């Protein structure tokens, strides 16, 4: 047979297989290991219980298919401002993060990372700061069209209930102010514990840990 890959099936199997393993190591495993070391230097952020549950729900309803959590910046044009490395934000992303492109440490310890690859809806990396009103989020989740006419976001009515919660669980629910155009069939509406957690998570998205006084608001 010889070592000729045209005629030796063992060589034909092993050469592409081993070359592939080497390349995978070089382009994915090794860089990921190097970056893991950098990440581990960042202290683990403290996570409240409710936003953590909300984060899971954000994954379970897969909001990441339509929403990114990243502000792109042009690293090649980065400059040092007062000893802080500053990356200019891309024009298209400026509305979402005028101040600062997302940095590696903002994602530290997140697993999975909801960076996203599509922006059917707006970027959510600082929603909590842009939209701090809890009730707005309830209205929006219940019927996006009611607060954003023409929105393509699917309504999440199944996160709400019109039957009053049982007295012993009342604390886990939150009443929603019924506004006009919401399309609720009854005159009272409650956010389920899931809706509460999800909104807590959205409100926690503030990029606050980066502000530290040096960012122009």
């Amino acid at each position, binding site marked *: 047979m010889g070592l000729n890959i045209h005629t030796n099936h063992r060589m*034909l199997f092993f050469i592409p297989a081993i070359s592939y393993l080497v390349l995978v190591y070089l*382009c994915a495993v090794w860089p990921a290991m190097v970056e893991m070391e950098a990440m581990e230097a960042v202290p683990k952020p403290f996570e409240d219980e409710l936003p953590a549950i909300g984060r899971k729900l954000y994954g379970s309803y*897969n909001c990441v298919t339509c929403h990114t959590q990243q502000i792109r910046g042009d690293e090649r044009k980065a400059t040092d401002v007062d000893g802080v490395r500053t990356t200019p934000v891309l024009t298209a992303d400026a509305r979402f993060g005028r101040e600062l492109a997302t940095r590696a440490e903002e994602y530290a310890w997140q*697993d999975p990372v909801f960076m996203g690859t599509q922006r059917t809806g707006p970027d959510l990396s600082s929603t909590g700061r842009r939209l701090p009103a809890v009730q707005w989020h309830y209205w929006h989740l219940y019927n996006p069209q009611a607060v954003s006419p023409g929105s393509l976001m699917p309504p999440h009515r199944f996160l709400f209930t019109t039957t009053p919660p049982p007295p012993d669980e009342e604390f886990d629910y939150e009443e929603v102010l019924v506004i006009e155009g919401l399309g609720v069939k009854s005159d009272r509406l409650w956010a389920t514990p899931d809706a509460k957690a999800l909104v807590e998570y959205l409100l926690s998205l503030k990029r606050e840990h980066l502000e530290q006084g040096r960012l122009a608001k």
Partner: protein
Amino acid sequence: MKIPVGIPVFVAAAGTNPNFAKMVSRWLISAGVWLLFASVVGLLEAFRLVDPEILADYAWLTFGRMRPVHTMTMLFGWASMALVGLAFYVVAKSTLAPMHEPMKKAELFLANLAMVLCNVGVAVGAVAMAMGDVNAGREYREWPWYAMAPVFVAVGICGLLFYRMVARRAVEGIYISCWFVMAACFWMAIVVVMGYQTFWTAGIPDRIVDGFYIHNAVGMWFTPLCVGMTYYALPKLLNKPIYSYALGVLGFFTHLVFYTVIGTHHYIFTPLPMILQTTAVICSVAMIVPVWASTGNFLMTMKGEGLAISHSYSLPFLFVGVVGYGLASVQGSAEALRFVQEVLHFTHYTVGHAHFAMYVFVTFLIWGCIYGLVPRMTGREPPILLVSIHFWLALAGIAVYVIGLSVGGHVQGESWLEGEPMMESVRVSAPYMVWRAVGGLLMVVSHIFFFVCLWRMRPGAFTMAYAGAGK
């Protein structure tokens, strides 16, 4: 110009082991069923991006959960199962295996087992995601691990079977199709391991692996399998040798080197290491080499065969698929450039590219190979009128789909550059969502015609009757 004088399909099929033919057909018909299912889900999603109120009252049917049901079922239920089924036939034929017994009894059993495992994985994955167990933020591996596990085992089994079939080939040389098939199974196994071993990453490293996974799944699995199938089907159907065997070998190795390292082009302008981003952009452009080594090779083989192509019901699919491979990949190379990323990343244009590649390239090539090769295995031909309807509806549908989204994606991206409010970009791209829904509808209808044809080609009494003839 000459019309190649092939042998009638029932003569080609004579002597084929009916159990082998049945096994291959089971893979293909399963794939056909998943194609229909995922198409309906895709169409639902397309209409929801026109009117989000459609079926909005059920948590399990919500947009975010149905989207991965569409993508995962298309990728693993449809494209993977169809390609693996075809690969069994192509490997058997190109190793000159005796067709009355191309695989041993135990091997046939394993191949059927792998088929069952794949179906179980795809079904479990769809149900689990509808119930909310979504591996979110990890595109094309949204299935929970227990859905991917059976599929992973199936890929392993098939890889082993292909290796054994190649090992006992009746010719000295190993045909290029087998190169791609054997390698793809190994590559895919590694890709799945990388995709599902997430315990050691978080933060940015998680995204490094993500970029790797996304493009290696499409580049080291679907693409090599499709190219491998075409290297067998095209010369066979045209009844002439491939234009250049050396180009095929060049394509294989450059594919291996460049495709593996371009994953980070999904994360340009992010905090991912700059060296990975730059490598990804450069090698994305270098992808022109393997892509055109194959595409050029196929086109040169088809050169002067216009009459044959227009008289065949399978070759037009292969022709569209080959051209689709070349164009979608050139489009991909351009998309990876930084100044293009700045405008088109995150837009509907990407979805247009994904469908251009997965539909015009992968899906059309699969159809061409099925229409071209399955009758040679079962001795039964599809009704030609239905095949023509399938072809034209699918082509018209995907044209409307891709052109619509490409324009819509540009409009959306420009609106962001202008700094208009976000809702403005939703509003200006809304008409193109209607284009997609209309194109999608045509595609889904064409899939019904395809399924009827596939069903008509299944092994039947005819296959059995001729089974003994070649012994």
